[in-house]
C-alpha cells in the first residue's frame, strides 16, 4: 500500500547526495578535463581549444619526467616495504603471543596521525647535517657505531625519494598488517591442522596453504597502497617542501596551477593522475563488488 510513495521518498532522500556526487565529482572531473584541453594560462579562464597540446608538452617536460621517475621509485619502495613489513608483522602477531594487543596497537598508531606531522618529525630524524651539527638518525647511528648507515637521506639525488618512502612505510605498514591479520584470522583452523597432519612443516603451510589463500588480500593491499602512492603529496611537502629533486605529479600540479597560474597544464597533470588511479581502481572495484554479489 505504501509501496509507491515509499519508493519516491527513498529516492528523494538520496537525491541530494546523488546530485552532489554527480556535480562535485563527475561534473568537476569533466570540467578539469575540459580545462586540460584549453589554453588557460593566467588569472582569467580561457577555454580556447588546445587539443592534446598540454599533454604532449608534459611528456617533453624534464620536470615531469623527474616526477614520473620519482613516482615509480616511491611506489616500488613504499608498496613493497609496506607489504613485506605488514605481512611479517601479521604472521608474528598471529602466533598467539602474549602482548599481541599491545603490539597491534603500537604498529597501527601512525595511521591516526596526519602525513604533515609524520613529515615534520621525519624531517628532523633524517636531518642530513654532518660533523658537530649531526642530529637525528645519523647521530643515533654514530652512537651505535653503525657509521656505514649514516647518509644524506632525502637530500640524496635520484634516491632521496626513497627516504620519503621510508617515512611513508612507517605510517602505512600497520595498515597492511591489519589487512593481513584480518585475512589470517579468517582462515579456518582446520585447514592448518589438516596440513599439519599431512606432515607439512610450518614453513610449507605458509608457502603452500596460507599465502595462496591470502592472494586476494595481497592484491587489495597492492592496489590500495599503489593508489595512495600515486597521490602522495602532503608527506613530501612536509618533509622536503618544493625541492625539485623530490617533485611528484601532485606537487607539480599544485604549484603550476596555483602558484604559476598555468591552469591548463595543471589540469592535464590532474587528468593523467586520475587516469593512472582509475586503471588500478576500476577493475578492483568491479571484481570486489561482483564477488560480493555472488555471496
Amino acid at each position, binding site marked *: 500500500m*505504501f509501496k509507491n510513495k515509499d519508493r519516491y*521518498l*527513498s*529516492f528523494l*532522500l*538520496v537525491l541530494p*547526495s546523488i546530485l552532489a*556526487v554527480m556535480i*562535485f565529482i*563527475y*561534473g*568537476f572531473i569533466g*570540467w*578539469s578535463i575540459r*580545462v586540460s584541453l584549453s589554453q588557460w594560462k593566467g588569472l582569467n579562464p580561457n577555454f580556447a581549444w588546445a587539443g592534446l597540446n598540454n599533454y604532449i608538452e608534459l611528456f617533453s617536460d624534464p620536470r615531469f619526467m623527474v616526477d614520473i621517475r620519482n613516482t615509480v621509485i616511491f611506489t616500488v619502495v613504499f608498496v613493497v616495504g609496506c607489504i613485506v613489513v605488514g605481512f611479517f*608483522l601479521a604472521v*608474528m*602477531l598471529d*602466533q598467539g*603471543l602474549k602482548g599481541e594487543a599491545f603490539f597491534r596497537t*603500537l*604498529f597501527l*598508531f601512525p595511521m*591516526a*596521525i*596526519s602525513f*604533515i*606531522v609524520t613529515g*615534520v*618529525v621525519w624531517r*628532523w*630524524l633524517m636531518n642530513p647535517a654532518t660533523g*658537530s651539527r*649531526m642530529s637525528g638518525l645519523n*647521530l643515533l647511528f654514530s*652512537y651505535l657505531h653503525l657509521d656505514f648507515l649514516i647518509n644524506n637521506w632525502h637530500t640524496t639525488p635520484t634516491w632521496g625519494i626513497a627516504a620519503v618512502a621510508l617515512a611513508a612505510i*612507517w605510517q602505512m605498514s600497520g*595498515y597492511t598488517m*591489519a*589487512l593481513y591479520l584480518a585475512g589470517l584470522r579468517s582462515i579456518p583452523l582446520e585447514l592448518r591442522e589438516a596440513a599439519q597432519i599431512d606432515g607439512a612443516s610450518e614453513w610449507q603451510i605458509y608457502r603452500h596453504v596460507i599465502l595462496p589463500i591470502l592472494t586476494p588480500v595481497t592484491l587489495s593491499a597492492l592496489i*590500495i597502497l599503489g*593508489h595512495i602512492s*600515486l*597521490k602522495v*603529496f*602532503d608527506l613530501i611537502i612536509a618533509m622536503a*617542501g618544493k625541492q625539485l629533486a623530490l617533485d611528484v605529479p*601532485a606537487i607539480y*600540479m*599544485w604549484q603550476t596551477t*596555483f602558484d604559476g597560474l598555468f591552469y591548463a597544464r595543471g589540469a592535464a597533470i*590532474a*587528468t593523467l*593522475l*586520475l587516469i593512472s*588511479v*582509475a586503471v588500478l581502481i*576500476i577493475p578492483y*572495484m568491479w571484481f570486489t*563488488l561482483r564477488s560480493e554479489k555472488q555471496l
Partner: protein
Amino acid sequence: MKAKSLRIGKNWLYAPLIFMSIFYLLPMYVMLVTGFKPFEEVNLKTMWALPHTIAFDNYVEAFRHLAPSLRNSFVMVIPATIISSFLGSLNGYVLAKWKFKGADVIFPLILFGMFIPYQSILIPLVQFMKSANLTGIPGLILAHVIYGIPITTLTFRNYYASLPQELIEAARIDGANMLGVYRWILLPISIPSFVVVLIWQFTSAWNDFLFAVVLTGNEQWPITVALNNMAGSQIIAWNVQMAGSLLAALPTLLVYLFLGQYFLRGLLAGSLKG
C-alpha cells in the same frame, strides 16, 4: 616434540617484534622528549637523551602559535563529521534496503569518488567556492561533507545490507513507512556504525592538508597547514616544532587510543570490506 620446538620458536619472535616496536616508537620518542626539553638543553648532541628537567615552555610557545588554527580545525571538523555521517547513513539505508531503479549503478559511481585523486577536481572546486562566496571554513566543511559521502555511504550500506530484510518487513506490517522504519528500527541499532564513521571522518578531516591549503587563507588555516608553515619557518626552534607536532597529532591519537577498534573498522571499510 614438535609442539615444544614450536614454543621455543615463538619466544624468539619477541626479538623482531621489539626491534620493530623501536622503529615505530622512535619518532614518537623524539617528538615527546624534545618537546619537554628546556631551552638550555636544546642541543643537537643531546637530541636522543632524556631531559634533565621537564619544561612546558615549548608547549606554551607552540600553543601560542597554533591555538587559532587548532580552534579552526575543531570548528571545521565537527560539523563536517556529523553531516557527512548522517548523509552516509541515509544513503546506506536506501541503497541497502530500498533500492530504486538504477541503485546498482549509482552505488559504484558514488564509491569511485573515494579513490579519485582530489587534484582532478581541485581547479573547478576552487573556482566554484570562489564564485559561490564559500571561501574559508564553510567551503572546507562543504568539501569534507561532499567528498566524505562515498566512504560513509559504503560503511552504512554494508552494515544495513547485513541486517535481515524481515526486520523491515515486520515493521512495515505494523504500519511504519520507510522513514519510520529508519527512525525507529535502524537508527537505534546503527549507533556502533555511527561511531566507526564519525571517528573515521573526524580523523580524515582533521588530517587533511590538500583541501585546506587551497580553500583557506591565513586566518582560517586548520592545524595541518599552520604546522607545516610553522615548521617551514627559520625562526621557530625545533623543540617548539616537535611540541607543535604533538599538539596537532594529539586529538586523533587520543581517539585512536580510546576507540581503536572502531578506528580499525573504518580503516578496513576503506578497502571495500565490510
